[in-house]
């Protein structure tokens, strides 16, 4: 598999001298690091680990098109749309698999019913991390925020469990399966 120069792609959409850039880079590197620790624990192949590195570094690329001034994003769209925008950008870059990671990093996922009930700005279809790589990246993303004050802080499992519990029992059940499969005890 050809290596993707993800720094080049990031720099094309988020200028290195912009205030968003440090937030983007630190967040994505921490998520990539966490995801790669999981991938090594599961003894995934080199190709799969490389894909996880690239896709984790690119998973949030859609944020600059959203309206989130707290993290210096001055686009028009609601923040949650960054997953679909990320997909479009990465598809246009000729990276359909990475695009799938960007679209699906929406916690444990949303169903068509969630989208209709909560009036989410998504097409009415299930959107969820389906492949092992997508699940690992979405799981790793739970641990880190892009809030500039908390960028480096790793969330506890407890905190993650509580935030997912607000979204219902089905979501919590998926999270528990992921914890069982993916959680790596740190030193």
């Amino acid at each position, binding site marked *: 598999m050809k290596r993707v120069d993800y*720094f080049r792609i990031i720099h094309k959409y988020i200028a290195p001298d912009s205030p968003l850039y*440090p937030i983007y880079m630190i967040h994505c590197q921490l998520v990539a*690091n966490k995801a790669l620790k999981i991938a090594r624990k599961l003894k995934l192949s080199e190709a799969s680990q490389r894909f996880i590195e690239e896709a984790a570094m690119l998973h949030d690329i859609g944020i600059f098109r959203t309206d989130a001034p707290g993290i210096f994003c001055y686009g028009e769209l609601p923040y949650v749309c960054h997953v679909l925008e990320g997909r479009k950008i990465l598809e246009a870059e000729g990276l359909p698999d990475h695009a799938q990671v960007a679209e699906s990093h929406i916690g444990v996922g949303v169903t068509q019913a969630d989208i209709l009930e909560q009036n989410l700005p998504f097409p009415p279809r299930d959107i969820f991390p389906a492949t092992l790589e997508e699940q690992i990246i979405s799981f790793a993303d739970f641990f880190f925020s892009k809030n500039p004050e908390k960028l*480096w802080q790793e969330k506890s499992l407890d905190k993650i469990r509580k935030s997912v519990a607000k979204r219902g029992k089905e979501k919590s059940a998926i999270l528990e399966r992921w914890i069982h499969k993916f959680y790596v005890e740190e*030193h």
Partner: protein
Amino acid sequence: MLDYFSIIHRYLAPDSTAYPLYLIHCTLVTKLALEIAERLELDAAAQRLIEEAAMLHDIGIVRTQMPVIFCDGALPYLYHLTEGCKLLEAEGLPKHARVAQTHSGIVLTAERLRSVGLMADLIHFIPRSLEEKIINFADLFYSKDSATLWRERSVVEARNSIEKFAPANLALFDEWAATFGVN
């Protein structure tokens, strides 16, 4: 709050081949150093210094010759300690400069300094403050080699690097590992 990205970008262009290695390496070292700082319940100012100084600790590599990490300066690699120090002093950051100068202290010997023509006393390269010690320790767990960039070394592997380069400091390493809660 120090804008350390703008300092990094001044010396290392974001579109250069060395930049990704620099940024990823420094971020991983910073993360580990901050985990230690949190465990030791250091105050916000100390944690902030650790974040900034760890992100800048290797900036001197730009003046050294190290083709495997795409550094095409003139000086031997070990000079990244003194060059980083000079550069950060010139930026008006004396505490960060000390971190750059001392971030390899535990693996250094007087002989190694001499071998590359660094005549300053070893003592100037030894971390003194807690922040300096934490960053020196955290740096032992990561490489800038592109093949192993993301991989965190085990404590045994980190200890082996001390055994190889400065066996006299093994007891100090063990003391740090215990104090910093890494085992």
